């Protein structure tokens, strides 16, 4: 077919052309639209706004805008820090004041860390055509095996004990991923079903472990003993900043997953299986092996998320230590287009939102749930890029939308 005469375009127009077709712009606009709608939601759930509307339309509108603005300012100061305070703190020169002022930013990074591990776990599964819903369960098991290596093994130097404990965490998660993997490979049992069931087993198993075999006898409530100093992931600053080595381990894992997926023959095989299993069989790949390997690696990454929390933040295992990191990971892996570097970016977004939400609740009284709504809105827009393309009148992407493979859903 003939192309329509293309007029000569300058480089800026060409750039805009390409950019407006790219998925990256859709993601940015989805986030922006989500934030705007979130602001509207905050406004319409605030009583002051209604009272102001009773006075006059414009004062109502002004109040609505101010409420939304204040909410996002609180979200920003909660997640990045109060810029004025930071400047004042640096001027005062007092160490503790400075650390307090910059703590929100680093705390957001701490919050992001388990998301990176979990998001990588989901993304790796997706790339191999597997929908690993079991990240949360694998994360719990990884936390258990990691914390055990932290408190039960003693007499090791830190440079051995830390990697060993992380490795135990990965091993636990890998085991929890292996079971659905082998079930799928041998019997065809669907991984969505089996990983969900493995989640429940993991939750109850951890409950029992905390109450009986791993229970710290000095405590009334179910808790494990503290881990040894040598197993703790080192922190880079004094209190109150909890920022620790785990963040950089997570970044390293993102790099490794990237190299694995896109630079090695193994990754090529996994992606081929995920993208078109028939062609993979034609090309001589054993689908069953690839499935098991992908579930084991995915589980290992999820396990590291759990180990990271006990070795870097809590130093012991408590019940309900995870606020649903595993489930959020599914969402953010999609947000990051299942690319390891995309996962890092979306994990940072989630981490900053979660951390900011707490102070938002404290300072302006907006419930923490607004952040869940924000996340949901952003994801809904990314899942339905047509909405964003229509609102902003973007052109169709040249290639087909890089749809996330839901092949295993028969979708």
């Amino acid at each position, binding site marked *: *077919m003939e192309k329509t005469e293309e007029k000569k375009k300058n480089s800026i127009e060409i750039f805009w052309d390409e950019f407006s077709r790219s998925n990256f712009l859709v993601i940015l606009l989805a986030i922006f639209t989500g934030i705007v709608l979130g602001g509207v939601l905050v406004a319409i759930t605030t009583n002051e706004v209604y009272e102001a509307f009773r006075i006059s339309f414009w004062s109502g509108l002004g109040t609505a805008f101010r409420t939304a603005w204040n909410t996002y300012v609180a979200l920003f100061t909660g997640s990045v820090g109060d810029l004025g305070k930071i400047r004042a703190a640096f001027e005062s020169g007092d160490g503790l004041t400075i650390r307090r002022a910059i703590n929100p930013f680093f705390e957001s990074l701490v919050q992001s860390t388990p998301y990176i591990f979990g998001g990588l776990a989901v993304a790796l599964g997706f790339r191999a055509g597997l929908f690993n819903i079991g990240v949360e369960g694998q994360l719990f098991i990884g936390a258990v095996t990691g914390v055990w290596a932290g408190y039960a093994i003693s007499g090791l130097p830190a440079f051995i004990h830390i990697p060993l404990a992380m490795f135990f965490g990965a091993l636990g998660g890998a085991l929890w991923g292996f079971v659905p993997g082998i079930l799928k490979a041998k019997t065809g049992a669907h991984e969505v079903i089996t990983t969900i069931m493995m989640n429940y087993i993991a939750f109850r198993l951890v409950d029992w472990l905390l109450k009986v075999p791993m229970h710290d006898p000095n405590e009334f409530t179910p808790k494990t003993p503290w881990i040894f100093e040598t197993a703790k992931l080192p922190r880079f600053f004094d209190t109150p900043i909890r920022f620790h080595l785990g963040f950089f381990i997570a970044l390293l894992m993102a790099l490794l997953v990237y190299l694995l997926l896109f630079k090695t023959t193994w990754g090529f095989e996994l992606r081929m299986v995920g993208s078109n299993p028939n062609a993979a069989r*034609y090309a001589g790949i054993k689908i069953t092996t690839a499935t098991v390997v992908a579930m084991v690696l995915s589980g290992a990454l999820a396990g590291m998320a759990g180990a990271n929390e006990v070795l870097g933040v809590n130093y012991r295992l408590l019940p309900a230590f995870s606020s649903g990191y595993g489930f959020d990971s599914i969402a953010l892996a999609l947000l990051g287009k299942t690319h390891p570097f995309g996962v890092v970016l979306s994990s940072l977004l989630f981490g900053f939102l979660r951390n900011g939400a707490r102070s938002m609740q404290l300072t302006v009284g907006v419930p923490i749930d607004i952040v869940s709504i924000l996340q949901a809105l952003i994801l809904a827009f990314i899942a339905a890029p047509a909405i964003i393309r229509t609102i902003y009148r973007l052109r*169709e992407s040249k290639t087909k939308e890089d749809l996330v493979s839901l092949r295993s859903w028969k979708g």
Partner: protein
Amino acid sequence: MVPVLELRGITKRFPGVLANDHIDLIVQQGEIHALLGENGAGKTTLMNILYGLYNPDEGEIFVNGKKMDVHSPIDAIKAGVGMVHQHFMLVPVFTVTENVMLGEEFVKAGGILDREKAADKIRDISNTYNLDIDPDAYISDIPVGMQQRVEIIKLLFREANIIIMDEPTAVLTPQEVEELFKIMHTMIAEGKSIIFITHKLGEVIEIADRITVIRGGKVVGSTTPHEATLNDLAAMMVGRDVNLNVDKTISVPGEVVLAVDNIKVLDPTGTIAVDDISFEVRAGEVLGIAGVQGNGQTELVRAITGLLQPIDGEIRLLGENITRWSPRQITEKGSAHIPEDRQKDGLVLAFPIADNLVLNMYYLEPFSKSIWMDQKQILANGNRLVENFDIRTPNAMTPVSSLSGGNQQKVIVAREFSRPIKFLVASQPTRGLDVGSIEYIHERLMQKRDEGCAILLVSTELDEVMQLSDRIAVIYRGRILDILDAKSATKELVGLLMAGIIPTEEEKQKLVTNKKQILMT
């Protein structure tokens, strides 16, 4: 005389593409008007506009001299335009009557379906047009050719006068094609007009009264079968001279490369799809497997390539028993496979061309060293093959999904031919391709044969099998009914066997001696 249908200046733009560029088309009453063009030439777009599925950006449609606005198929049907789609729109568990009535139900008092009245009307139509349809038969019980006639009845039932037939012969056996052509003649004798969409030149010459050729969204010419030759039409369609006859040298068969001994293969539902088949393919020859789709070809190919385990029998490649080997082992032994469904089995559409060109060699040097893929080598290989095999693409990193069917097939051929092979299974190697690509792929296959490669060609296109093969095996319901020498085989004989009819020795002799020069299409 006012033409029954006139399209004036129809233009349709899709983002970046001009699919129809001021197309004019005049169809007279009682003619079979062939719309000829390669895939992607814009035939289907034009017909979808006429049928109300798309709105044209410019242009007008006149039916019997009256300007018509078509916004949906309902408008089109009201105006007397009907379409037989390439893929039938029938409900298999309904009877013929029920399918025909669907959407146009006759109702008795009290809202009860009046099947008898509809069945009577169908019987009438069937008698008028010699369709030989039983209104009470279930769709799932009748053969494909008859299902197509049900589609035609659906249109006649709604009193359509202009009937669009989109590639109607693609799914038929040669005998069924003959019958369809008779029916088409009856229809025009009854005053109907037919628009016949196709890319098969021989059929156009045989049946059309008038031929309009479309290329690149434009009408490039209009002619009649008396004025134009096959080569003229092909040249108009492709835009350059095309060699329709495969230059075939005499084959010099060497040693046996593939031997299949009494194999039985089950299909996924567990029924026997390949039933006790044996044959040999020698180096430097093409063994063609002719047959209507769904007679066990798929399972036979999958068994030979290691994708499916036979339940009985033995397959030997170059003297080694490969019956239980994995696909990779068989590939490494020097076997190549052009799969019948290129998008399902042969390509990863989301991957770049360069990656698809190493799909079954990525783990070998120089494309990888230990576990690390060598992107430079893969890209270099990609650029080289894109160049050598004339794959039309901006560059080798373009995803295969954005290529046309012909170029996708070239990617597979390039990949399979870029390594030393001794045996090739080519399954439907030119399905859905345009004339230019077919010519190219046929040339490449012949070249491989002459280099001494043993080729098993599986195709439902009888012409293709007749042209390329040195010997022809006809498969019917999982069995090979006969293996013929291509020199003495005729289209009629192979056609009979494809329909499951084994002629007596006497009839066979008659068919062979009567052999006419087969028109290559």
